[in-house]
């Protein structure tokens, strides 16, 4: 297998002067950017240059709406194939794979049909050209895929092979029907200028019944040729055809065919058709005369039609391995050295030669996006045609193509979700490619972020989950949406950030006297334990709730616990003690004596902790607060002692 040395494609950037300046570039996740510049830096004088920066993209196709449908529908087929039962052996597995192949093809055809509709309905000539081009490309893809299905998936044996190829030619090559319709709907069909063309093409495509039907028109219109028509009709009727389900063996078929062939020969040699050139030519075609068939080049339009016609009339029991010889000679005879073969021709030729690798290689080069080769190769891999004993890099190639295709999907704002499944089914590099790509998906909305997160969580991609949550949390903090930031930090299990945000909440409370995002804080649940500060925030809010519900003793207990268990940061103790004031001032004694002692101790710890310097700087408000607290605590202590000392009822 030789290396195909193709010249890399050249893309021109308008306005950039490559002769006297240079170009530089930057990569973006889905595209690339180029601009004019000048190296080396020392030469950087003020020179007028190209004022523009250009975005350069690889796959224009991904953005077409119709193709998007192709991508999403084929995605469904792909995933179904990966998950399909492998235990089905032999025939049922083959039938399953053939069904998959047919599904792919029907998706291509549906897409083609839609494109065609777009092409004929648009008024914009440029769009029309674009659409028509797409239709051509899709049509070629279906042609190739169909042939691959016959040869590689169906693996039709001799006999059936030709039948499939005939179907293939009838479906794809030259539109017979419109011409025939015209002929039949005319007043005198047999006098129509295309009459004999129609008969010829039916014969060339082995459609004997249709040919006979037309021939009968000639017979009825032209009594003189009735005799010849009858004989020809008879020959056509008697032509042995192997049909699917027919139980005769190939040898039987060959024998019959031989007899029939000799009969045709006799009629020709006897000069039966000599007075009618058309019919004589048809008889020659029936005998597989290459020259006679070649004369009808214009009708067949392609060398592969010529190939199949030849085989029908000279070698109907052709074996798969023999195809290559006939294919090559057909191509040579048909082109006759006038024109050179085109990419499509080499692809089909490679298929006839059963060079699967060559087919894929040529398709990769000829087509501008990876969709076709990725899906076809994957299918062929499932047919076990790319296994190591066939191609040692077989499954590597499958994965390589799938990775390329899926990577391309990630540059699209919604198709990237399809790409995820493709990566899932690439055992070697799929995971790491997914990690690299999914991180780069812009998280414009919270919904999108959640969607991406779900995908990461399903696949245990913990680092990506953490990173995405962190990015969202950071964005929220910058925009001062503390509640959102907090919930993202919790999801990221980022204790440090949760602490930071909790501090912000507490700071806000101190400044404004109320909490924002109460719902969130009230329903923290076990995630409260993520960080000490967060726990404090949650518990502190709980204290406020209890107070609001007038459950004073519970609130009191909680408040005390926050300090004694050191859940509250020291900086907050003053606030907590101040919060205790209303509880101390209640008519009813809420804090017990012991609790009061604890509170006093906390207050002393707090004031003792300050150095002399700080004490001097403490303002009047602070001092007054401490005084008030001491007084309140003392009074409460007194009342508590009395209350506890009093016997019930006395």
């Amino acid at each position: 297998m030789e290396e195909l040395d193709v010249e890399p494609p050249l893309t021109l950037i308008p306005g950039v002067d490559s002769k006297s300046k240079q170009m530089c570039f930057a990569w973006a996740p889905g595209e690339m950017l180029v601009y004019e510049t000048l190296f080396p830096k020392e030469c950087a004088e003020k020179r007028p240059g190209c004022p523009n920066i250009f975005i350069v993209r690889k796959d224009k196709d991904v953005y077409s709406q119709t193709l998007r449908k192709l991508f999403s529908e084929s995605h469904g087929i792909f995933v179904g194939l990966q998950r399909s039962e492998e235990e089905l052996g032999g025939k049922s597995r083959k039938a399953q794979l053939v069904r998959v192949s047919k599904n792919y093809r029907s998706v291509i055809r549906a897409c083609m049909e839609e494109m065609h509709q777009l092409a004929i309905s648009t008024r914009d000539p440029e769009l029309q050209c674009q659409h028509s081009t797409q239709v051509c490309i899709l049509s070629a893809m279906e042609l190739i895929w169909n042939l691959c299905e016959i040869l590689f998936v169906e693996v039709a044996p001799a006999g059936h092979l030709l039948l499939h190829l005939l179907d293939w030619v009838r479906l794809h090559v030259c539109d017979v029907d419109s011409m025939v319709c015209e002929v039949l709907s005319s007043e005198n069909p047999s006098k129509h200028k295309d009459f004999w063309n129609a008969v010829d093409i039916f014969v060339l495509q082995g459609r004997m019944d249709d040919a006979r039907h037309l021939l009968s028109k000639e017979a009825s219109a032209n009594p003189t040729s009735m005799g010849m028509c009858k004989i020809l009709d008879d020959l056509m009727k008697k032509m042995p055809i192997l049909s699917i389900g027919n139980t005769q063996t190939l040898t039987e078929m060959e024998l019959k065919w031989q007899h029939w062939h000799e009969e045709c020969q006799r009629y020709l040699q006897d000069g039966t058709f000599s007075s009618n050139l058309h019919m004589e030519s048809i008889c020659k075609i029936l005998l597989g005369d290459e020259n006679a068939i070649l004369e009808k080049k214009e009708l067949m339009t392609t060398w592969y039609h010529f190939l199949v016609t030849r085989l029908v009339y000279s070698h109907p029991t052709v074996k798969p391995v023999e195809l290559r010889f006939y294919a090559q000679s057909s191509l040579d005879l048909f082109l006759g050295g006038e024109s050179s073969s085109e990419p499509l021709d080499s692809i089909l030729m490679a298929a006839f030669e059963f060079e699967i690798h060559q087919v894929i290689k040529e398709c990769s080069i000829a087509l501008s996006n990876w969709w076709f080769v990725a899906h076809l190769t994957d299918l062929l891999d499932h047919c076990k045609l790319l296994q190591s004993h066939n191609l040692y890099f077989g499954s590597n190639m499958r994965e390589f193509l799938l990775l390329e295709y899926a990577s391309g999907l990630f540059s699209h704002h919604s198709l990237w979700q399809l790409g995820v499944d493709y990566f899932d089914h690439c055992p070697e590099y799929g995971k790491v490619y997914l990690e690299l790509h999914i991180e780069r998906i812009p998280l414009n909305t919270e919904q999108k972020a959640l969607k991406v997160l779900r995908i990461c969580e399903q696949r245990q991609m913990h680092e990506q989950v953490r990173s995405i949550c962190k990015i969202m949390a950071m964005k929220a903090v910058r925009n001062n949406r503390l509640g959102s930031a907090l919930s993202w930090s919790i999801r990221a299990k980022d204790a440090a950030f949760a602490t930071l945000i909790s501090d912000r909440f507490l700071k806000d409370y101190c400044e404004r006297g109320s909490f924002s995002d109460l719902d969130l804080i009230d329903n923290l649940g076990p995630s409260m334990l993520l960080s000490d500060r967060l726990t404090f925030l949650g518990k502190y809010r709980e204290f406020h709730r209890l107070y609001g519900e007038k459950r004073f003793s519970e609130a009191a207990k909680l408040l005390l616990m926050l300090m004694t268990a050191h859940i509250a940061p020291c900086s907050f103790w003053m606030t907590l003690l101040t919060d205790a004031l209303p509880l101390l001032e209640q008519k009813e004694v809420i804090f017990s004596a012991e609790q009061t002692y604890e509170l006093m101790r906390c207050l002393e710890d707090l004031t003792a902790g300050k150095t002399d310097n700080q004490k001097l700087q403490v303002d009047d408000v602070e001092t007054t607060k401490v005084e008030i607290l001491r007084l309140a605590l003392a009074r409460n202590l007194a009342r508590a002692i009395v209350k506890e000392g009093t016997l019930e009822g006395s």
Partner: protein
Amino acid sequence: MFVARPIAADHRDLIHDVSFDFHGRRMATCSSDQSVKVWDKSENGDWRCTASWKTHSGSVWRVTWAHPEFGQVLASCSFDRTAVVWEEIVGESNDKLRGQSHWVKRTTLVDSRTSVTDVKFAPKHMGLMLATCSADGVVRIYEAPDVMNLSQWSLQHEISCKLSCSCISWNPSSSRAHSPMIAVGSDDNSPNILAKVQIYEYNENTRKYAKAETLMTVTDPVHDIAFAPNLGRSFHILAVATKDVRIFTLKPVRKELTSSGGLTKFEIQIVAQFDNHNSQVWRVSWNITGTVLASSGDDGCVRLWKANYMDNWKCTGILKGNGSPVNGSSQQGVFNASLGSANTSLQNSLNGSAKHTF
């Protein structure tokens, strides 16, 4: 490839660097006009300039984004011997309506005595850290220990490379098996035979960066250097822009064979070398999966290089200026300026844009 609409850059002088943010929705450009511009991509794909301000008192050579985990942070470096860290401040509501944003200077790194030629943020798993390199031959690594306070950066390491430095690249691998690593390129023109690419690795024991390798085969001035993203490989890939494009693999030799606690030894191999640019290659950079390398050279072209699944490297695309001025008015729609060798008649063939797969 095809060219989408152009963006009027509006710099008053040469643009030296363009950098996309992590998600590809924001872009920063810097220029000899001493300013940096930030562009945002709107929902319909248009790029709008949302900030433009004077950043230095000399040409700005490079601009780079920090990972979005650290917020909206940029770093720029300049001929004026400084590197600066910028942070975006969420503006007042009228600013938002006008579509403008503000960037404030968080810190200026003034340790260099010569032009600072490159600035790059370290991989995010290392925290908020950046490296600069200067013409004075020193690579400096700074860290901001508090991510919420970007005005505090400390100089953690100073690596003396002994040669004027032109470019640096951090190894993006976050694998535990790899210590932090940074490659430094030099464009020193003196006729010493000192190799122009040095690789420094962080040593956990000494808590310092030490030279792990020099690429002895690169003796010409190096203009750019880039580690490829690590696709779970055990070895590293490094691209070098010198008088040609070179791609090296660095395979760590098993640590047991080297002195314990010491630096990793690498087996260095060159896997590709391309001189298609015909002269100096000025920039090299990898796409996000590390599967395509882009290079730009003296021939005025940008070339794309890709390896097939058999690891053979080939050029898969060329971008070249066509010299003709852009027609004044704004470009509507897309125009296909792609010429492919396989682009024959579409009637019975397929649209070609050659792609290197095999």
